[in-house]
C-alpha cells in the first residue's frame, strides 16, 4: 500500500509546484497520472523515490515514511521502487544484460557492485526477465543498437530485477511510436497484475490512460483535481 498525504513542494518561494497532494494506491493497481505539461507530474513521481526532495507531507510505503529515511534506509527503499524513464536512461555502450543487472546494484556490497560481480542466480534471473519482455535474443547486444521500444523494455526488465513493490514510469511512451507505445503499456499492465505491483505512469495521452489504467489521478497547476477508478472515466468520457 502506497499512501501519499499532503505532499508539498515549491522550487521558488511562494510558487508551489505541488500543493496538498494526497492519494492511496493498493498493490496490483496500474495508475495513470495525467495532466498538462508543467502541472507537476514528474515532481510527484520523483518525490516518491526522493530523487526530488519535497518540502512537506508524508509518503508511506507499507506504513513506513520514505521522507524521513536516512541514507542507508533510503537505499533500501529505492531498491523496492523501480523507475522507467522517457529517455530510457540506459548505459548505451553496455550490453542489454549488463543494463538489466544494474537493477541488482542496490542489493550488493559497494565493492561487488563497483566491479560488476553478479551471482549465477542474478544472471539467470536477468535472462528470464529478458525472455519475459521478449528480448532474450538481444542479451549481448549493445543498447545503442536497439530501437526505442526495445530500449524501454530493457528499462522495464532493469526495474523488475529489483523485485520492486512499486514501479514509477516517467512518461514511458512519450518517445515511442504508437505500436511500441501500446506494446509497452500492455507489458506494464500485465506485469502489474502478475507481480501484484503498484505501477504509476505519467501520461499525456488520455486515451491510453483510459485503455490501460485501473486508477486515474489528474493534476493541474500542482493540485490534485481528481482521483478515481478508471471505470468511472470509461463511462463518462
Amino acid at each position, binding site marked *: 500500500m502506497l499512501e501519499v498525504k499532503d505532499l508539498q513542494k515549491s522550487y521558488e518561494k511562494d510558487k508551489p509546484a505541488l500543493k496538498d497532494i494526497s492519494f492511496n494506491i493498493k498493490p496490483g493497481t496500474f495508475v495513470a497520472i495525467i495532466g498538462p505539461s508543467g502541472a507537476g507530474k514528474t515532481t510527484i513521481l520523483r518525490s516518491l523515490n526522493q530523487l526530488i526532495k519535497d518540502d512537506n507531507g508524508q509518503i508511506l510505503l507499507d506504513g513506513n515514511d520514505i521522507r524521513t529515511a536516512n541514507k542507508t534506509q533510503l537505499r533500501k527503499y*529505492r531498491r523496492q521502487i523501480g523507475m522507467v524513464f522517457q529517455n530510457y*536512461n540506459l*548505459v548505451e555502450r553496455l550490453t542489454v544484460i549488463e543494463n538489466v543487472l*544494474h537493477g541488482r*546494484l542496490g542489493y550488493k556490497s*559497494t565493492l561487488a*557492485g*563497483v566491479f560488476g560481480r553478479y551471482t549465477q542466480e542474478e544472471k539467470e534471473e536477468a535472462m528470464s526477465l529478458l525472455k519475459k519482455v521478449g528480448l532474450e535474443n538481444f542479451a549481448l547486444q549493445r543498447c545503442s543498437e536497439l530501437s526505442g521500444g526495445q530500449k524501454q523494455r530493457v528499462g522495464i526488465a532493469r526495474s523488475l530485477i*529489483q523485485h520492486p513493490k512499486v514501479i514509477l514510469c516517467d512518461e514511458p511512451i512519450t518517445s515511442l511510436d504508437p505500436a511500441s507505445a501500446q506494446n509497452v503499456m500492455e507489458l506494464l499492465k500485465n506485469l502489474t497484475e502478475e507481480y501484484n505491483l503498484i505501477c504509476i505512469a505519467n501520461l499525456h495521452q488520455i486515451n491510453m490512460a483510459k485503455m490501460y489504467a485501473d486508477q486515474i489521478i489528474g493534476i493541474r497547476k500542482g493540485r490534485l483535481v481528481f482521483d478515481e477508478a478508471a471505470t468511472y472515466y470509461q463511462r463518462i468520457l
Partner: protein
Amino acid sequence: MQSPIKYLSHKGWHQTAIIAIIGGIYILGSQILNFDNLNGLLAVPKAFAWLGVNFKPTAHSMQYFPRIWQKLIQTVLLAISSTMVAAIIAIFVALLGSKVTGINGFVQTIVRAIASFFRNIPLVAWSMILLFSFKQSDFTGFLALLLMSVGYLIRAFMEIIEDEASETMLALKATGASYFQVIFQAVLPQILPSILSWILYMIENNVRDATLVGILTGTGIGFIFDIYYKSFRFDAAGMTVLAIIFVVIALETISNQIRKVIL
C-alpha cells in the same frame, strides 16, 4: 509586435553594419601602426620562396636524420606519457568537480578555479617557471605539458560527465545503487569513448607543443631544431620540421582510426 518583414530587413542592416565596423577597425588599426597592407601581402610569397630555398633538406642533411629521429621519438613518448598521467589525474578531479557527480558546490568551485588556473597560464610561461626549479631536463618539459593538459582535460571531462552521464546516473541512483557503484557502472562506461577521443586529441596537441617546450627547456626535438637553426644549418632545421610534420600527421591518422573503432 514587430512585423516579421520589418524584423528581417532590420537584421540585414545589422549584418551590413557589423561587417563595415570590423573593416573600419582593421583600416584604423593599420593606419595607427603604419602597416603597409600592400607590401605586407606581397612579402608573403617572397618569404615562402626564401623558406623553400634555405630550409630545403639536401642529401647532405641526411646525416642528421638518425639524431633527429631519436629525439623525435623521445618527444612523442614524452607527450604521450604526460597526457596519460594528466588524464588519470583529470578524471578523478573532474568526478569531484562536475555538477552531477561532484561533492558539493564549494569543491566544484575550487576545481573549476584550479582547472582554469592551469589552463590560462601559457605553456611558455609554465616552461620558463619550471625551468628554474627543475633545470634543463626532460622532466621540466614533461611537467609543463602535464600541468597544461590537466587544466584542459579537467574542464573537458567535467563537461562530458555533465552532458553524457547525468541521465543514466539518475536511473542507477533510483535503483538504490551507491555513489561508487554509479560512478563505475554508469558514469565511466558511458563517457569512455568521449574521454578517449579527448586523450587522443591531447596527445596530438602535446606532440606539437612539445617542440616549443623543447626550444625553451633545451630538450627533445625542439632543442635540436634550435641548435640547427642558430648554427645556420637551415637544411637540417628544415629536415627537423618535416619530420615533426610527418609524425604529427601519422599520429592524427592513427587516432582517427582508433576513434572510428571506439565511437
